[in-house]
């Protein structure tokens, strides 16, 4: 059909709509068009913009066969209480068919404090596992073969220390570093912008990150050295376009820092990975995944002149949206997570964590985690959604939406370039303000009823408080502090002192890669708090400024 013919048909259709709308007014907050046709994608060049899986610009996916060969990695984020408790949960997940581990650390660990630091009081083992030293890490991975499993660690400011501990545990298991597979989140920029577990100011933080890139490219080549995360930006309230735009802007900043430090783009870009949110609006999410791959491929090719295809691939881990879980009628969350899973899979994710129904209330119970994992397995094996590659390609709406999200992302990326890059945009509070404004708009839309959340502002019922929630006992903190004191009494404290002094010297020399020095300190059982304490002394701490 020619465009003229389609246009004529569309005009006729639009005329017929007038009458229907007079009778049945449409709902608020809908996509601008009610219907999409070939006219909406008539400018889109298939070969240039959509293409084929495993080929530039990777709109249809990064691997040639996608899930027809192997499903995505079903990776459940877990960790709480002590290393021994979390080790039990990990082994339970592996026995249940999870194909990768994902470690959640408690807040003191994420911010570089030991469990016995006064500031850690009340937080030990709460949102993740408490790790104070190599001794805890040995327990965390007890009876788990680090040569076989791939492990993702949600750790940012002290990522260098936790990665060193992982390498040291592997050494003890007899697994060489070049066999290790996994990811550290290591994305400090989104900590300043959205997640909050920063320690040092941006400059030394960027140095630590490039040190890791360089060290791993030589010594831990299968390790994903960063997971550039939009997840938390979205959780903080951003839109889909903002999620990928701000994250890709962060990615650009990391590449620029690494190049400035003397690395070649193709030596590290293949180990960069991303982390997206799978939110409620299924089709918008699918379009977001597709658009993000296209934008990143163009950034790498056109801006950084990468040559290896691997450098241009946006490989992504996904988590379903925690902020969309409701405390009201929590079983409804199972359905939300199933739809979000469908979006992530049709979007072509490489790995996925599915949230549990009770996470708006507490950490999930084992039963809830099982349902969440089974959700992925049902989508994989029963739904048919994983049977053909990029099944929504060619949908007039999804292609038009992919284009629209790409366009909005470029507008933000250009704007951030004008400000001076992601670091400057964060320091000026621009990115934070954009996210806050979106979050506030969302909340006001829910409160005005412009947006419906089932069970929250519509279809509410009287409910009994939920029973059987997981609770981390306060005694965990006491026990962990005792363990730490015992470990400190046993270790060679002179060796610890020497290693920390050496690390301090290395911190003061900007041209020194810190990784070997941190690894050295970790091997002496220097604690996370001691190592980060040395770095705090030299680097100082970041202070946030908030504009409401």
């Amino acid at each position: 059909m020619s465009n003229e013919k389609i246009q004529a048909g569309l005009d006729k259709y639009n005329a017929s709509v007038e009458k229907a709308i007079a009778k049945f007014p449409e709902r608020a907050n809908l996509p601008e068009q009610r219907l999409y046709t070939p006219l909406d994608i008539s400018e889109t060049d298939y070969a240039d913009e959509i293409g084929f899986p495993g080929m530039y610009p990777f709109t249809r996916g990064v691997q040639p066969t996608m899930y027809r060969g192997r499903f995505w990695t079903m990776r459940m984020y877990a960790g709480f209480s002590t290393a021994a408790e979390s080790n039990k949960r990990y082994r339970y997940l592996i026995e249940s068919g999870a194909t990768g581990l994902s470690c959640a650390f408690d807040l003191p660990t994420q911010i570089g404090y030991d469990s016995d630091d006064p500031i850690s009081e009340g937080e030990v083992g709460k949102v993740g596992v408490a790790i104070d030293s190599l001794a805890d890490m040995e327990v965390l991975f007890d009876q788990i073969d680090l040569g076989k499993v791939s492990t993702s660690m949600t750790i940012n400011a002290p990522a260098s220390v936790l990665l060193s501990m992982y390498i040291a545990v592997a050494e003890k298991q007899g697994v060489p570093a070049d066999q290790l597979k996994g990811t550290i989140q290591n994305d400090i920029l989104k900590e300043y912008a959205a997640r909050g577990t920063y320690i040092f100011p941006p400059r030394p933080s960027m140095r630590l990150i490039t040190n890791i890139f360089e060290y791993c490219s030589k010594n831990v080549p299968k390790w994903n050295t960063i997971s550039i995360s939009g997840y938390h930006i979205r959780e903080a309230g951003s839109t889909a376009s903002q999620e990928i735009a701000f994250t890709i802007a962060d990615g650009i900043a990391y590449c620029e820092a690494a190049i400035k430090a003397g690395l070649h783009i193709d030596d590290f870009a293949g180990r960069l990975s991303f982390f997206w949110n799978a939110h409620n609006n299924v089709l918008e999410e699918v379009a977001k995944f597709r658009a993000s791959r296209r934008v990143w491929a163009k950034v790498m090719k056109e801006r950084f002149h990468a040559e290896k295809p691997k450098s241009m691939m946006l490989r992504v881990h996904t988590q379903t949206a925690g902020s969309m879980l409701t405390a009201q009628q929590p079983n409804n969350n199972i359905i939300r997570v199933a739809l979000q899973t469908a979006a992530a899979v049709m979007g072509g994710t490489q790995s996925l964590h599915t949230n549990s129904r009770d996470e708006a209330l507490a950490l999930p119970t084992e039963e809830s985690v099982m349902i969440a994992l089974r959700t992925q397995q049902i989508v994989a094996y029963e739904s048919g959604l994983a049977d053909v590659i990029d099944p929504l390609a060619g949908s007039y709406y999804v292609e038009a939406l992919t284009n629209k999200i790409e366009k909005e992302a470029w507008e933000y990326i250009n704007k951030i370039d004008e400000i001076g890059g992601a670091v400057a945009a964060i320091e000026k509070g621009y990115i934070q303000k954009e996210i806050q404004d979106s979050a506030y708009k969302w909340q006001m839309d829910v409160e005005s009823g412009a947006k419906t959340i089932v069970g929250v502002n519509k279809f509410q019922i009287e409910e009994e408080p939920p029973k059987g929630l997981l609770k981390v006992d306060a005694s965990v903190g006491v026990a962990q502090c005792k363990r730490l004191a015992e470990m400190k009494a046993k270790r060679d404290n002179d060796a610890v002192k020497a290693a920390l002094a050496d690390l301090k010297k290395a911190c003061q020399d900007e041209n020194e890669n810190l990784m070997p020095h941190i690894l050295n300190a970790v091997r002496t059982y220097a604690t996370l708090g001691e190592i980060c304490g040395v770095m705090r002394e030299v680097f100082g701490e970041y202070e946030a400024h908030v504009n409401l």
Partner: protein
Amino acid sequence: MAKVRVLVAKPGLDGHDRGAKVVARALRDAGFEVIYTGLRQTPEQIAEAALQEDVNVVAMSILSGAHPHLFPKVVNLIREKGMDDVLIIGGGVIPETDIPALKEAGIAEVFTPGTPTGDIVEFIKANVK
């Protein structure tokens, strides 16, 4: 009547501040004078800020599970400083079963996920001294 002054605070190490910021802005839009502490405040810092800023209300948010420890600690420090009339409220991912103990400790009301900001505004208006 003077404007009601509210300190919105994030005690502990928790970095989730979407809720705190949305509430802070909604309270400001409702006509209150709002001061936001930013992240990672110790109970001592929050009590000191409440005193310095001469607030009528302290509204705390925690999503990390540290509320049973931190909320009561802030209440005690505020009362120790002689701010007997300050209304202290809390919110976040807080299981229903923890709420009676928090109220016992002096948290006037606990707002859990899904609460409209208007409810918090109304509560403050009805209870502020």
